């Protein structure tokens, strides 16, 4: 062990070099805006979590949200489908328009919003039902009664799970491994044909092979869906995302901490030539 220390030493390079599967982003005028977020503030009780976030999210791209713990990444994507409504004491100001439609208003039905904007969570959370029913339940409840079996098969195939489970669709979803459970949750989310899929650190509880499977399927599905992914893992953002937003923790005048959007640009630019000093410190590993 002692003699070989030089061989395992790690050098931090100024830029993270990772292989990507990205194609060049189309020119801005050809990008369709799906979300337009203006001056979003989010507050838990009296504790501000996010201040002044303004950004646009584009259709059929993968947008990654990176940043240190506590910078409000999860809070932010949970604003995008009104998931924070469930938390007592949560309030937000600013506007989020989705296809030009404000989704924060009092007259907007959060259930209808979530119907179009699905979500995959940090920990796999399959229903305690069979593999088939996990995917079929949402489909049936939401009234897509025609060809349920076909929809289930398509969703499981898209989530790269069909071959592994096709012979045991009646088995409990809880008998699957963590990575399979998470792909099942993705299949469940896409089976109801959402427009956007929000992913809150979908691979943080998974091993590298399962992580790779999920990144692969995001890459393959982005022609049909728009993905917004929160990740702790910068390499993952570099691999899967077209656009990357870096959030950081700032201190206000009264010393309170809140999350803030620091920089938002093409992934390539964020990782190779960031314009903000804080982004550079973060992506090169000097901070966070």
């Amino acid at each position, binding site marked *: 062990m002692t003699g070989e220390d030089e061989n395992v030493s790690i050098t931090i390079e100024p830029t993270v070099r990772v292989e990507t599967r990205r194609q060049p982003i189309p020119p801005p005028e050809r990008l369709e805006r799906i979300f337009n977020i203006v001056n979003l503030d989010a507050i838990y009780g009296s504790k501000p979590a996010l201040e002044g976030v303004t950004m646009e999210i584009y259709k059929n791209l993968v947008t990654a949200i990176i940043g240190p713990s506590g910078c409000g990444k999860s809070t932010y994507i949970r604003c995008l489908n009104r*998931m924070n409504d469930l938390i007592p004491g949560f309030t937000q100001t600013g506007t989020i328009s989705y296809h030009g439609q404000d989704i924060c208003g009092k007259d907007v039905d959060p259930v209808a919003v979530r119907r*179009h904007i*699905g979500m995959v969570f940090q920990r796999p959370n399959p*229903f*305690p039902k069979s593999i088939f029913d996990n995917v079929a*339940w*949402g489909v049936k*409840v*939401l009234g897509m009664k025609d060809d349920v079996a076909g929809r289930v098969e398509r969703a499981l195939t898209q989530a790269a799970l069909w071959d592994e489970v096709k012979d045991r669709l009646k088995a409990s979803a809880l008998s699957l491994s963590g990575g399979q459970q998470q792909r099942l949750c993705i299949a469940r*989310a896409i089976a109801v044909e959402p427009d956007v899929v929000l992913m809150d650190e979908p691979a943080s509880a998974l091993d590298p092979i399962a992580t790779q499977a999920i990144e692969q399927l995001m890459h393959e599905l982005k022609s049909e869906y728009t993905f917004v992914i929160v990740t702790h893992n910068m390499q993952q953002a570099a691999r899967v995302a077209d656009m990357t937003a870096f959030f950081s923790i700032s201190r206000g005048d009264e010393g309170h901490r809140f999350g803030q959007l620091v920089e938002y640009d093409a992934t390539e630019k964020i990782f190779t030539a960031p314009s903000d000093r804080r982004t550079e410190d973060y992506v090169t590993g000097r901070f966070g």
Partner: protein
Amino acid sequence: MSSHGINPADLRAVNLPRRRAVNRGMEAIATLAALTAVAILVVVVWSVARRAAGALDLNLLTKDPVPFAFGPVEQGLANAFAGSLVLVGLATLMALPVGILVAVYLTEFAQPTVRTTVSLALDVLNGIPAIVIGIFVFGLIVVGRGQSGWAGAFALACLMLPLVARATMEVLLLVPGSLREASLGLGVPRWRTTLSIVLPQTIGGIVTGAILAVARVAGETAPLLFTSSIVGTQTSWNPFHALQSIPVAIFELSESPDPQDHARAWAAAFVLLLFILFTSLGARWLATRSRRKLGASR
């Protein structure tokens, strides 16, 4: 003192023999207290069983009592068993749905402040003496209309409600929030999530709570004295009339001058005891089973 080493004298226990003796003494007292609790149960069951033995036969369950019987007559307490069945059954039908709805409202929909306030109210309701509930129902229903099975069942339901609601709340709180999020994240409405995802997880716990509540009220006498105790000796299943019940029958027979009546009271008490014992054990078994199922589903 100023040296950094530890003085061996600091580590030596002070008064060790005395502390050991106190420890042993306290342990003995605590063990004795625990044994006393078990002993009380054993003595109660045994003494009831011993006195019940004489009158414990099938007639107890199948024959009605014969008033002013002289000498050995085949008689039982069928009317009391039938009445208890109707009273407790109706009370369960009233308390169970309301209790479950209260629990669902508090855990799934209510604001935290409302939840704490109503939970406290349920605990207070649970602490109200049964006789007070009896007087309340007497004033509310019995005065002017007379006693009836409905009045008795309503009084028992008032006692069951907080038990059912609290037990249901406990299991609902065990259902992981991630499961609710999974369903809501699909765009499924809140009510549908509660009905199809949350509640099915808790059926075992709800049944357990209901069984324990039944076991508890099956032995209640006080609320029935006011509401359903002026009865004949015929078996009746009609809740529009006052119905005899086991606890009230035990109370009345124990005041009789006839030693045969005393024996039947003991026998009825023994049957009631067995019923409560077995339902409690059954409920415990169900509870551990459903808890294990919930634990596995996270």
